[in-house]
């Protein structure tokens, strides 16, 4: 369990972290999300005792990191942004060294063997770290954090530099670890946070901009009901029919998907579910649905909205993900079903890792 109360960190007059508070419960995976320089790494460095805060306190399982650092640090496994590797050592020497450094009481050889097979670095066990690829270095860094089975894991961008297959493996590993560890992981890859984390904290300019589950976040930002439907029918008439449904506020025609099949963005009044009525009226005219999906905000849209200010129009942000979504619009039935659920709930973003380096 991690408790952070009114934590601040000032570099001169620059506030890197400004009065943030949150809690992470046992067995919870918390995602830290934010653009570069938002204060994610600073917060993690404070939590692990690498740097000190200028205000507030951080408790690791009830132990203040500033008052009893040695006891608190024993609870933490930390993978910093740049894995802290001694390049002149072999993986074996390095892990043995970290084992001794952390004063673990577990059986050394078998414990390290277990960790190595967990993060899959058995085949480089005797190689010098300098000569390893970035992905292997990252995994050695992760192995180092797991030594001693610490109850709290703090991982700063754990999947950077890994290939897609490894990313999925490490994500699954983190998910598994999250069952009996408290995990904080930072990322600027939204899909990662969405795939792994129970809860998301969005940090922007040192302040917590949002703290909720991914599902609730997308709901809270977009309570209005938006649908995107691909319908096979004469364009003008379709618009007329849809507009006639009670509750529909605006209908916009999007791009043509196939010959005669257009996408319609439908905005209904708040809290109004028009899907049944829509279905009825379209099928009454013998037109046909090619797809129907909810246009609720994904985590990416929310992220942009929160970090770039409210003035980013929701529909613009939503449009940016359309191209990704359209590939999976194959099955009508499946999509009608999934329209029930929220956009943020769908594992739809794995293909569209947007890395937020200022411009998107």
């Amino acid at each position: 369990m991690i408790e952070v109360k009114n934590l601040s960190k000032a570099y001169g007059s620059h506030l890197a972290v400004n009065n943030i508070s949150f809690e992470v419960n046992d067995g919870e995976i918390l995602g830290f999300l934010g653009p570069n320089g938002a204060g994610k790494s600073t917060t993690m460095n404070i939590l692990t005792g690498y740097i000190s805060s200028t205000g507030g306190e951080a408790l690791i399982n009830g132990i203040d990191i500033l008052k009893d650092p040695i006891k608190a640090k024993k609870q933490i496994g930390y993978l910093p942004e740049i894995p802290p590797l001694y390049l002149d050592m072999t993986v074996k020497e390095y892990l043995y060294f970290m084992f001794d450094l952390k004063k673990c009481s577990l059986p050394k050889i078998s414990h390290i063997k277990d960790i190595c097979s967990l993060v899959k670095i058995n085949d480089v066990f005797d190689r010098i770290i300098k000569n390893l690829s970035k992905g292997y270095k990252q995994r050695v860094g992760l192995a180092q954090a797991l030594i001693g089975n610490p109850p709290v894991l703090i991982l700063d961008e754990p999947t950077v530099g890994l290939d897609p297959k490894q990313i999925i493996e490490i994500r699954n590993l983190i998910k598994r670890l999250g069952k009996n560890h408290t995990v904080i992981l930072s990322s600027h890859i939204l899909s990662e946070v969405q795939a792994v984390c129970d809860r998301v904290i969005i940090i922007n300019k040192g302040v917590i901009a949002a703290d909720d589950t991914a599902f609730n976040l997308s709901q809270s930002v977009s309570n209005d009901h938006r649908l995107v439907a691909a319908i096979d029918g004469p364009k003008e008439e379709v618009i007329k029919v849809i507009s006639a449904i009670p509750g529909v506020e605006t209908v916009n025609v999007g791009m043509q998907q196939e010959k005669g099949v257009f996408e319609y963005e439908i905005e209904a009044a708040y809290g109004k579910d028009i899907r049944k009525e829509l279905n009825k009226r379209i099928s009454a005219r013998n037109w046909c649905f090619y797809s129907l999906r909810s246009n609720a905000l994904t985590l990416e849209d929310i992220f942009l909205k929160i970090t770039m200010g409210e003035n980013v129009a929701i529909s613009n942000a939503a449009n940016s993900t359309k191209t990704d979504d359209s590939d999976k619009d194959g099955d009508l039935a499946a999509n009608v079903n999934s329209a029930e659920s929220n956009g943020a709930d769908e594992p739809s973003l794995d293909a569209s890792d947007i890395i937020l380096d200022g411009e998107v």
Partner: protein
Amino acid sequence: MGAIFRREITSYFTSPVGYVFLAVFYFCAGIFFWAGCLQALTADMSACFALMFYVNLIFVPLITMKLLSDDKRLRTDQALLTSPVSLAGIVYGKFFAALVLYVAAVAIFPVFGMILSLFGEVPWSTTFGTVIGLFFLGAAFISIGIFVSSLTENVVVAAVLAIVFNLVFLIMDTISDLIAKISIDNVDWLNKVFEAIANGIKNLSFYDKYNEFTTGVFNVSSILFYLSIVAVFNFLTIRVLEKRRWS
């Protein structure tokens, strides 16, 4: 502390640093031994020992330059500082690793003594007294080197700065003499102040105290002086690491 000590010792011998240092040290000691003892036909090694001061001054920084600066550069300090180890444990672990390497270097002198004993009477008490002096002198230089290494993340800067630091301690005598020579007519109290400053600085001289050992004087206060230097600079190093956390 133990883990850091073992790592640094291993690191000296998996990289060229340890070998180069030992080779250079043995080489210089060998030349001085040859010139000062074998050529001069004497079993008195004081001339050889006197020159070792300068070898220490220049080459001890080579074994300390990487100790903390490299950690900062490679970000491995994040592993050290987020592990359940105290800052003193980190600093002393590294200090003792360098000291052990240094002892391996200094251990050449008893060997020289044994060679000499084949040809004549070796003044063993003076020889061992000086080796002990040399040991503590080296310890002081090591702690200064580690302190300087904690200030920068550039290895070369760490080495050069450490040599400069050591040089300052060397020329303390000269500085002290210069200050003592200042005398202003009719301002007696000012002259006394200068004299006091000169004496104070003279007390900090590394060279004087070491020289005493080579002439056969085993002065415990000199050893205490070197030990205090070790304590002060290791303390300062710990403060530097602590300060970095707060800035």
